[in-house]
């Protein structure tokens, strides 16, 4: 494959990726399609436009240069874009496609003696059949490595999620907008099972009736509460267990923050 054809391919990819991304695909597909548009295509197009050729003893150099240049071009391009328009999906898409296609156009225009194509050159580092190993052997090795790494990733995700998801019960009060002086009392149950809980309100020093609530797993309960000048102590426990899970000390609000 020569560099002119590669330049056309990169430009076509940039346009196709932009179209696909504008259709709002699922995140995984969007990531696979979009990541090279940000991290590879602009730099690759610039490498071709600058006619950086390969060099013996420096395998995959142009691929690495492409990644570095993509980072630089994005950093500098974003600063330029920010001066005129917001940095959003539209402006970024236009930037990446326009820059990539412009550089590809330069590469195609100047290509009198096309240097060895960067993509083909980068792919060339893979062992050939009968070289450092047969193709089938490498496929087998790749499968083994992928299986090991897939197991690694799965183990990490499962155990880290389990470790993080320790049961948590939150009791909070936020001011209700307006002059009422009320607060919205909320109980969040961040566990995998429903919780039967008891809220006890101690207004000043007088214990008031309690209120039993049931909060579903990963659910939330809330209620507006008036706070008198004496203040309110709200204690969250489990029925029959005097040990408080959480306690709030509420006074009349000084005003919105």
């Amino acid at each position, binding site marked *: 494959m020569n560099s002119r054809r590669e330049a056309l391919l990169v430009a076509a990819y940039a346009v196709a990726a932009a179209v696909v991304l504008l259709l*709002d695909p699922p*995140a995984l597909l*969007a*990531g696979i*399609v*979009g990541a090279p548009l*940000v*991290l590879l295509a602009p730099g690759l197009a610039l490498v071709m436009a*600058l006619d*950086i*050729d390969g060099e013996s003893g*420096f*395998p995959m*150099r142009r691929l*690495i*240069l492409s*990644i*570095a*240049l993509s*980072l*630089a*071009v*994005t*950093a*500098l391009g*974003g*600063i330029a874009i*920010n001066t005129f328009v*917001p*940095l959003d*999906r539209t402006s*970024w*898409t236009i930037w990446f496609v326009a820059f990539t296609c412009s550089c590809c156009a330069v590469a195609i225009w100047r290509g009198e003696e096309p240097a060895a194509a960067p993509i083909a050159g980068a792919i060339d*580092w893979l062992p050939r059949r009968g070289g*450092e*190993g047969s193709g089938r052997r490498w496929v087998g*090795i790749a499968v*083994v*490595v992928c299986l*090991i*790494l897939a197991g*690694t990733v799965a183990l*990490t995700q499962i*155990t880290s*999620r389990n*470790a*993080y998801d*320790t049961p*948590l*019960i*939150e009791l*909070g*009060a936020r001011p209700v907008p307006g002059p009422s002086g009320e607060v919205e009392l909320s109980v969040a149950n*961040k566990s995998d099972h429903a919780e039967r809980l008891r809220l006890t309100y101690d207004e000043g020093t007088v214990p008031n009736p309690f209120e039993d609530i049931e909060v579903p797993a990963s659910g939330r309960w809330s209620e507006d509460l008036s706070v008198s000048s004496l203040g309110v102590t709200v204690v*969250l426990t489990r029925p029959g267990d005097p040990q408080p*899970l*959480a306690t*709030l000390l509420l*006074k009349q609000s000084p005003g919105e*923050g």
Partner: protein
Amino acid sequence: MSATPVQPIPEAAPGARFARLSRIQTDLPAVLIGVAAGTLLIAIGFAGSRAHDSWAAWPFWIGWILSTLLLGLAITSPTLSTRGRVVVVLIEAAQQSLVRWMYSPLSFTFPDELSHWRTAFDILKFHHLYHENPRLHVSPVFPGLEEVATSLVSLTHIGLFAAGTIVVAASHIALSAAAFYLLRRVSGSARIAGIAAFVFAMNPLHAGFDSMFIYQAPALLLGTVALETALDEHAPRTGRGWAQVALALICLAGMIVTHHLTAAVFIVAFAVIGVLLAILGGFGPTAKRMLALALAGVVMATAWVIAEAGGALSYLGTPLGSTISGVIHFGSNAGTVALPASNQGQSGDWLTVLATIVTAILVAVGFWILWRRPWGGPGRSVLARIFALLAFAYYGVLLVRQLAANGAELSGRLLVFASLFTSVSIGFALVSGLPVLASLRRYGRPVAVGALLVIFLGAKMSGWPAPWEQLPGNFHVAAFESGVDRANTEAVKWFGANIGPGHKVVCDASTCALAAAYAEADPIPNEGELYYSPTMTSELLKTIHERGLEYLIVDDRLSQEKPISGHFFHTNSDEAGSEDGAVPKAGLTKFEDVPGIMRIYDNGPIQIYDLRGVPLE
């Protein structure tokens, strides 16, 4: 130029002596599978640690040592092809990035990462750059990292954590290859370059710090590529000199808007290398190019500082000033030399000392080799000697570590850059050192692999994560990654969702990092006295009013342990190395009795207090 006949570097040793070993070491598939297996062992160790199993450290260390040995055997092989060497350093970097993700797979947890999260979040929210970041003021004016990450988020709608992880992993992995190319140009030998790049990637902060979501990660790649491109003597010969300069300028510019320290170091490096080339090798095209690019770097950096990044001068100037002062006054302004880990008397400290000694010896041996026997062509020989000379910066870094306030952190940061030079000397020492004597030649590779393993283990003991949090899952209050758990994360998210952005919140170091990121708060991590004082004094009330403090977050666990990192709250640099104690229980409960202070949130360990109604006295 020297008239000494050029001696070839032993790229491919004679088959007989190494035949049996070489089949194993250069079998890349075996290395690949072995490193994958090592990574799985590390993951098993992490899983065990999260479950608080006592055996967790074993698979963790076995996995790392197995991987390092396999990669070390491969990279020191005299018969491995150049492509194979690039693959080995790429595997090393990929493993580091994967392990970094495995350490914290659900979110960013290091305080600096959370600071950059805030900058990125603001870009996504406001669709513009340069919004104030109360936790890291210079971050918004060096937005390269966040621009790349947020552009990925904007285009693909993947989360910011996923985007940031992809960006830094790509930077980190590409950096290893870029380092190889640079060191190849310097040394003239793929074998030495491979070992040097491998050693570079083992500097203490590389695996655990430079692979984080921080602005140094992409900046290092840009700086290394710019330097390698500038030293390329092939491009001008093929008529692509202008393209070479353009490429270097683009990378320099990108680096300048990405990270201040990296830009400063690389621009100085361009100038110093250019001057030394002119002195040692004549004022040829390469020297001219280096000096011109250094000048261009200065101009671009000055323009950026004037236009947007004026705050960087004081941000860099303060630690630079205290470092110079400490060295000049022979340590009179020094804190301790230790990283937080050493404060705790970790059992692995001897490995750090041993690795330091080994590195110091190898740097000296490499210097001796290069300044006695020039290798390769004249240009490369001069370059190699220059890098060996600049490798003496390593000893300067050791001096900084000993004498400067906060020397431990500063030396770690400086070692990243010094390693680009020391790795060349070490590469020459490991390849050409022992084989100087024919009787020792057969021990060359085992000694080289042993040295690499020692350097690796020493880096693990003195690098990042700190030894007391090498394995995740054990919570310690205000202890960097270990200081983040569900309780404080959810508390902060509740605060952001229910109270809103822009409030001044007093908290410990970890909670403040979370509050800045997830609650868009203005965190105040340096009011430890508000916690340590057992009673609410009039001075504390005055502080609350004078600083406009609105909310305070209490972690009950502050009274249950001493700070493993030395401090729960931010301190001045001249207190680096000193240690605080646990917060007295009375210090945490005193807020309940103060009229006007409300407790508005409680999840067990974490409480949030509203200070806005506190009386003046």
